C-alpha cells in the first residue's frame, strides 16, 4: 500500500549497453533466457516482473 517501500531487486536484460547502476543486473543471451531468468528470480524473490522497453525486465518488490 505504501508506495515508498517499493524497491527494484534485480534487472534482467539482453541489452548490455542499456543498463548499469545499483541493482543486481543479469544479462541474458536471448529472449527465451530473459524470460526464464525473470521467472526464476520472481519466484525466488517473491517479486513482480515488470517490462521496460527493449528486452529489459525489472523485478520489483511492492511494499
Amino acid at each position, binding site marked *: *500500500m505504501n508506495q515508498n517501500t517499493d524497491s527494484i531487486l534485480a534487472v534482467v536484460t539482453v541489452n548490455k549497453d542499456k543498463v548499469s547502476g545499483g541493482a543486481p543486473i543479469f544479462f541474458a543471451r536471448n529472449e527465451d533466457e530473459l*524470460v526464464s531468468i*525473470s*521467472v526464476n528470480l*520472481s*519466484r525466488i524473490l*517473491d*517479486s*513482480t*516482473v*515488470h*517490462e521496460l522497453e527493449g528486452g529489459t*525486465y*525489472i523485478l520489483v518488490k*511492492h511494499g
Partner: protein
Amino acid sequence: MNAFGWTNQPEYLAVILAGVLAGTISRALLLRIDYRQYPGYPHGYLAHLSLGFISSALGAVAVPAILKPDYTAVTFLALAAQQFREIRNMERRTLESLESTELVKRGLDYIEGIARTFEARNYLVMGTAFATSLAAQFGGFFAAVVTALVALIVSRVFMSGEVIGNICDVVPATLSFKGPILMVDEIGIMNVGLASMRAKIIKDGLAVKIIPRDGNARATIHDIGQRNALAFTAAVILGTKKDVDIPEFTPMARKNPDTGDVGLYILPVEKDMEQLIAAIKLTPVLESARSKPLTAGSVTKKARKKAS
C-alpha cells in the same frame, strides 16, 4: 454507598432483566450482520457477547439507580465509556497484527472502521438496554417489548450503514493489455512483464468498473482505503489465486483520473461475474472515506457570499 441494595426488590429485578435481555439480544443480532467485515472467530464472538452483556447490564441498572435515587451511581457510565474505548483498541490491535500475514490487505482505514463500529455497537446496546428498562419501569411488560423491538430495528438500520451499491453503479468490464500494461477497459492497472502471466490473467481474470453516481461518490471511491476495502471484500468472497511468490495476481483497484471511474481487477478462485458485482456492491462505505464535497460546496458558496 450501597448502590446495589435494590437488587432485592423484585420489581427492579424485572426492570433490569428486561433491559439486559434486550441489550444482549441486540448485540447478538448486530454480531451476526458483520460477517463480511470480520471472520468471526468463536472466541471473538464470546468476547463480544460478554461485553455486550456487560454493557446492557450497565444501561439497564441506570434506571433503578436514578429512581432510587442514587444519582452518583450513574457515574459508572463514564467507566463504561472507558471500557468501550478499550474494546476499540483491542479490535484495532488484533486486526493490525493479523494484517501482516494477510495476502490481500484490509488496509488501515477498514481496520479503523471496524474497530470504531465495535465500540459504537456497545453504546447502542447500552442505549437499547436503558430504553427498555425505562419502558419496563413505567409502561410494564408490553411497553418494554415494543421499545426493545423498536430499538433493535433502529440500531440495525442505523448501524448497517451505506454500501457501495447505494452510491455507485457496478458494471462488468473487460481485461486487455496495452503493451505490458494491464487495462480494465480504459483504465491502466499495472505493468505485467511476463507473457505467461498476461495469458493467465486474460484467461482467468475478472474485472468490473465502478461508476460513481455523483461527486460525493466519486470522492468516496477516490479514497485509497476505500479501494483497498473493495479489493479485500472481492478477494474474501470470490477467493484469490494470489500467493506470496505471485504478486501479479493481487486484486487491484485503480481510477480513471479524468472520469473518476474505478476499475477493479481480480484473479478469483471462482470465476463468477455476478458474485463479483454483488461483493463490490455490498462493500461498506468506510466512515473515513465517506465525504460529501457537494454539500460542502454549498457551504463554501455561502461563505463566499458572506465575504463579498
